[in-house]
C-alpha cells in the first residue's frame, strides 16, 4: 500500500496570491493514497525541507509530491531532501503550480482548481513510480576547446593550469582570433597584440595544451564525460614539425595576389604564407586556391627554397579521433555582411570602411604600417565620419535586432586615437544612443567628447553619396537640433554589427546543443548558468553566446574553465536512471528499437528462456546499455510488442496522468 505525502509551497506570495494553498492541501488530503498533506511558505528553504524530511519519517511515506515551482528549478533539491530522509529520490514528483499555474492565471478560483488537478496528476504518477538507482559513467580527463581566439586561449590556459590536458581546435592557420587583428583595446588603449601574443606563446609552450590549427570538428559522439570527437586536420601542404617559420618561401613565391584575410582583404599576400608575424604555430600554410603548383602542377619554387624540406604538395586532409570529457565552444564572431546596407555606399566607395578595417589601417603591422591613409588615394583624411549601429538594433530585418555592445566603446577609441595622432582631423560620430556601462567606460567616452573634442551627433545617417571630387557626402539628421545636416568627409567608418561566426551553426548541430534565432548559442540559464549549454558537458565562452567585449570574454572563459575543471576532477559521473528497459519476455528481437536509437545504445543478446517442462529456448532480445541510453523514449513508442518502457516516464504513468487530467 502506497503512502503519499503532499507538500504545497506558497513560494511567498508567488503561488499563494493566486492559488488558495490551504484549500489545495485540504482537498488533496482526501485523495486515495494520500496520508499527509500540508503547506508552507517556502518548501525549498531549510525549514521547508525539514518539514518534508520529518513527514517522510513520521508517516513512513513511500512517495511524495511537491506542489511548487517548475521541476526544472527545484526537483533536484527535493530529491536530495527525500534521499536524506531515507526515501528513494525518484519517488518524488513535482507539480508545477507556479510557472504553469499561479503566474499565468489571475482568477483565484480557476487557479486553485487547476492547482488541485495538477497535484492530483502528480499523485497519479507518483503512485506508479518505482525506486531507481543512478548508474555511473567514467570521465575522460581531457577537454576540447573549439576556437583559438582570446576566449579559447584563456579557457585552455586555465584548464591546463589545473593539470588537465586540453586541445584547441582552430579553423584558421593560427590562433589569436579577432583580438589579434585589433590595434588598441579600450578603455586603457594598450596594444592588443602586446597583451595577446604572450598568451598565445604560453599556449604553445604549455605541455598540457595541444594546438590543432587549421583544423575543424568533423563529428561528435557520446555524452558528458565521454565525448568522441573526430577532427579534420586540413592539408596545409607544409609539415608543421619541419617548418621553422623562416619565411624564405614567402619571399620567392611568385603568386602574390591573394587577399590578405588578416588585414581584412586590404592588401595582398603570397600563396604560401604565415598569417601574421606572431602567428602560433609559426608555420607556413599554402592556399590551395591560389598556389600555382597545386592548381597547374608547374612551379614548386617554395619546395626548392625550403631548406627544412617542409613543403609537401601531396598532403591530404587527416582525421584524428580523440576522446574528451568536456567541450568548450569559443567560436567568436564576424562583422555582418553589408549587402543590405547600400545607403552607406560601402560597395561603391573604397573610402567607406568598417571598424575592423580601420583597426588594420591604424595597426603598425597593417597594410599602411599604421599610417592612417584613405584607401582610394593614400591621402591623409581630414574629415572622418563614424556611423554607429550599422546593422545593430535594427528591427527592419536588414540587420540584427540586438545591440552589438562593443561598438560605442571602440568608436570612442577610434575617434580618440585619431584625434591624438592627427590633431588637425575633424571627427564626427553619428549615434542613436551611446551605451558605455562598464568600469572606466563612461569616463573613457567623456574623454573623447570633452578632452579630444570629438563631434558626437545624435541621429542617424540617411545616405552616403560619393562625390565627384572624391569626397563622401554624409547626409544625416541631428535629432537634438531637429535639422538635416550634410558633412563632407574623406573617410566614413561603419560600426558594423557583429554576428556569431557562421560555422557555429554546424558545430551546434554536431554537439546537439541549442542555438537562438540570431545564431547565438543558448545558455542553460540566462542568469544562473550563463556559461553552460543546456547539453551536459558543453560550455560556452565568448561572443558565440552573445555580444561582449574582451574583459567579459576573458571572465567567461575562466568561468568555463572552472566548470570544466569541476567536471574533470570527478572520476565518475552519476548517470540519469530514467532510461529505457527491455522486458525480455515480450521482446521478439525485431531490431526496430535499435534503428531509431540516436545513440546506438541498443544491441541484441542471445538469451536462454525456460519454456516449462524442462525445455528451454534461446532467443535474440534487445539490450539497452545504461551508460549510453539518454532516456528520450523513441524506442518505447517504436516497439511493436510494447516490450520497451522508459523508467521514470513509463507508459502506465503517463496514461495515468492523462486520465487524471481528463477526469471530470
Amino acid at each position, binding site marked *: 500500500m502506497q503512502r503519499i505525502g503532499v507538500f504545497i509551497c506558497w513560494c511567498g506570495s508567488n503561488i499563494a496570491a493566486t492559488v488558495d494553498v490551504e484549500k489545495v492541501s485540504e482537498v488533496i488530503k482526501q485523495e486515495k493514497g494520500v496520508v499527509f498533506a500540508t503547506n508552507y511558505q517556502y518548501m525549498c528553504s531549510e525549514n521547508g525541507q525539514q518539514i518534508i524530511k520529518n513527514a517522510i519519517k513520521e508517516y513512513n511515506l513511500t512517495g511524495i509530491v511537491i506542489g511548487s515551482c*517548475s*521541476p*526544472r*528549478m527545484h526537483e533536484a533539491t527535493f530529491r536530495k531532501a527525500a534521499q536524506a530522509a531515507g526515501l528513494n529520490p525518484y519517488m518524488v514528483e513535482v507539480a*508545477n503550480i*507556479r*510557472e*504553469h*499555474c499561479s*503566474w*499565468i*492565471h*489571475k*482568477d483565484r478560483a*480557476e*487557479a486553485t*482548481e*487547476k492547482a488541485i*488537478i*495538477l497535484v492530483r*496528476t502528480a499523485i497519479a504518477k507518483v503512485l506508479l513510480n518505482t525506486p531507481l538507482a543512478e548508474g555511473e559513467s567514467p570521465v575522460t580527463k581531457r577537454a576540447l576547446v573549439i576556437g583559438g581566439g582570446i576566449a579559447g586561449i584563456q579557457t585552455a590556459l586555465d584548464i591546463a593550469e589545473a593539470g588537465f590536458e586540453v586541445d584547441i581546435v582552430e579553423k584558421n592557420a593560427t590562433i589569436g582570433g579577432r583580438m589579434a587583428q585589433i590595434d588598441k583595446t579600450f578603455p586603457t588603449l594598450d596594444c592588443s597584440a602586446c597583451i595577446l601574443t604572450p598568451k598565445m606563446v604560453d599556449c604553445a609552450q604549455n605541455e598540457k595544451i595541444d594546438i590543432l590549427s587549421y583544423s575543424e570538428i568533423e563529428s561528435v559522439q557520446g555524452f558528458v564525460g565521454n565525448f568522441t570527437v573526430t577532427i579534420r586536420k586540413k592539408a596545409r601542404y607544409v609539415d608543421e614539425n619541419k617548418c621553422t617559420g623562416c619565411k624564405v618561401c614567402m619571399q620567392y613565391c611568385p603568386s602574390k595576389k591573394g587577399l590578405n584575410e588578416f588585414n581584412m582583404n586590404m592588401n595582398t599576400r603570397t600563396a604560401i604564407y604565415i598569417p601574421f608575424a606572431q602567428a602560433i604555430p609559426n608555420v607556413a600554410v599554402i592556399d590551395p586556391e591560389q598556389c600555382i603548383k597545386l592548381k597547374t602542377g608547374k612551379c614548386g619554387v617554395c619546395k626548392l627554397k625550403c631548406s627544412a624540406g617542409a613543403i609537401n604538395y601531396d598532403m591530404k586532409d587527416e582525421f584524428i579521433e580523440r576522446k574528451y570529457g568536456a567541450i568548450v565552444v569559443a567560436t567568436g564572431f564576424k562583422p555582418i555582411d553589408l549587402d543590405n546596407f547600400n545607403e552607406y555606399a560601402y560597395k561603391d566607395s573604397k573610402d567607406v570602411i568598417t571598424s575592423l578595417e580601420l583597426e588594420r589601417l591604424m595597426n603598425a603591422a597593417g597594410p599602411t604600417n599604421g599610417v592612417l591613409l584613405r584607401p582610394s588615394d593614400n591621402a591623409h583624411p581630414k574629415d572622418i565620419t563614424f556611423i554607429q549601429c550599422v546593422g545593430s538594433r535594427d528591427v527592419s530585418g536588414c540587420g540584427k535586432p540586438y545591440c552589438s555592445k562593443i561598438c560605442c566603446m571602440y568608436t570612442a577609441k577610434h575617434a580618440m586615437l585619431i584625434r591624438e595622432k592627427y590633431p588637425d582631423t575633424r571627427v564626427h560620430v553619428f549615434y542613436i544612443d551611446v551605451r558605455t556601462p562598464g568600469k572606466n567606460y563612461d569616463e573613457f567616452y567623456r574623454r573623447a567628447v570633452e578632452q579630444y573634442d570629438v563631434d558626437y551627433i545624435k541621429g542617424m545617417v540617411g545616405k552616403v553619396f560619393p562625390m565627384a571630387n572624391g569626397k563622401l557626402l554624409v547626409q544625416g539628421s541631428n535629432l537634438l537640433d531637429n535639422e538635416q545636416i550634410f558633412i563632407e568627409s574623406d573617410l566614413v567608418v561603419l560600426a558594423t554589427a557583429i554576428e556569431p561566426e557562421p560555422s557555429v551553426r554546424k558545430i551546434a*548541430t554536431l554537439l*546537439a546543443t*541549442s*542555438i*537562438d*534565432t540570431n545564431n547565438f548559442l*543558448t545558455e542553460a540559464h540566462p542568469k544562473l548558468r550563463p556559461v553552460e549549454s*543546456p*547539453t551536459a558537458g558543453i560550455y560556452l565562452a565568448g561572443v558565440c553566446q552573445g555580444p561582449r567585449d574582451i574583459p567579459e570574454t576573458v571572465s567567461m572563459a575562466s568561468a568555463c574553465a572552472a566548470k570544466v575543471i569541476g567536471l574533470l576532477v570527478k572520476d565518475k559521473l552519476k548517470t540519469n536512471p*530514467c532510461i529505457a528497459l527491455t522486458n525480455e519476455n515480450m521482446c521478439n528481437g525485431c531490431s526496430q528499437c535499435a534503428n*531509431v536509437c*540516436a545513440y546506438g545504445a541498443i544491441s541484441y543478446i542471445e538469451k536462454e528462456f525456460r519454456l516449462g517442462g524442462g525445455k528451454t529456448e534461446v532467443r535474440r532480445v534487445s539490450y539497452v546499455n545504461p551508460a549510453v541510453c*539518454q*532516456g*528520450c*523514449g*523513441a524506442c*518505447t*513508442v*517504436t516497439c511493436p510488442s510494447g516490450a520497451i518502457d*522508459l523508467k521514470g*516516464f513509463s*507508459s502506465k504513468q*503517463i*496514461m495515468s*496522468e*492523462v*486520465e487524471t*487530467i*481528463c*477526469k*471530470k
Partner: protein
Amino acid sequence: MQEVENKEFIPTIVAFCCNWCSYAGADLAGTSRLEYPANVKIIRVPCSCRVNPMFILKAFQSGADGVILCGCHPGDCHYMTGNYYTRRRMSLLFSFLNYLGIEKERTRVEWVSAAEGARFSMVMNDFAAKIKELGENKRLQDLRIKGDR
C-alpha cells in the same frame, strides 16, 4: 424572462511538452506572466518522441477535447532526431483520427523552443480558442473486452 442555462463550455486540453524545449518554454511563459487558459494542463515528457499515439487515444477516450504535442524545433532536438519521429508518427495518427471522425483540428503538433515563452502562450491561446469553437468532443469508446482476466 426565461432563464437560459448559461453554462460555459470549458474544454479539457492535454498538452504534452518535451522537457528540454517546450516545457522550458512553458516555464518561460510563466516567468514572463503570459496568460493562457487554465484548462490547458501540461504533462512533462523527456522528448516529444516519448509520446505514444496510445496516449493521445487514451486522452480522447478519457474525455479530452483537444490534445497538443509540443517539442523542440526540427533540427534542435535535445536527443538529436526524436522530434522527427514525432512528426512522422503524428501525421499518421492524425489522419487516422480524422478517419475515426475526430476533427483534425483537435490535435496539433507545435515546435516551441525554450526561448519562446511568448510563442508558447500564443499557441496555447490559439489552440484553446479553436477547441472551444469546435465544442465538446465525442468520447472514444474502449471496446476491448472488459472483466476479470
